[in-house]
């Protein structure tokens, strides 16, 4: 089952875009919610992978 907070707040929390109060509240929720906790870990892994592309140009476009 997917947590209702996953889409609405999780990404903003991860990106440090929530207000201090909202971040505290969501942080407390995430500690208790296995769904959000797992999704945060996966998001962290995904962003870490993306950061490896910083110095890498995309492939040439092939028409």
């Amino acid at each position, binding site marked *: 089952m*997917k947590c209702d907070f*996953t*889409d609405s707040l*999780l*990404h*903003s929390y991860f*990106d440090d*875009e929530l207000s201090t109060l909202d971040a505290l509240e969501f942080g407390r929720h995430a500690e208790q919610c296995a769904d959000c906790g*797992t*999704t945060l870990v*996966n*998001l962290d892994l*995904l*962003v870490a*992978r*993306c*950061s*490896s*592309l*910083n110095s*890498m*140009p*995309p*492939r*040439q*476009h092939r028409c």
Partner: protein
Amino acid sequence: MSEFDLEDRVRFEQLVLPHVDAAFNLARWLLRGRADAEDVAQEALLRACRYFPGFHGGDPRAWVLQIVRNTCYTWLEKNRLTELAVEFNEKFHQQNHATPERLAISGDDRERLTRALEALPPRFREVLILRELEGCSYKEIAAITSIPIGTVMSSLARARRQLCFFLRDPSRKEANREV
């Protein structure tokens, strides 16, 4: 349009030139090719130079990237209209660009990630690039893309979810959890 004087030139060098790499980076990811990106980024910077006397404050990086983005979309409309017209369609993208099988056999993780990013529609790709590679805040992304912050948030969430979808290991039926 006012004249580009010496003072403007100094300001241009101080405010705009530090963002040339970011401008090229955004162009190459939006256009998916170095050669096209070089041409379009150069055109965008010329445009920035031309209109710089009218730039009075604000975030210069957001201003430059907005010009680059708009120049890229104009170029895409002219040269690759179908690419722009296709909204994200899981079936289409899975079949034509980055099936899990194709990603799996591509081996190298960065190559897989590159292909997965390229498989995203431009609107999703741009928010991901701006956030993950350029480190832009939601507010900056909203300014660059001219979309509301709420749309930035939802687009980023959907883009990340689709990226995970493309990166999913096909040999594992249960797959990665969505993000």
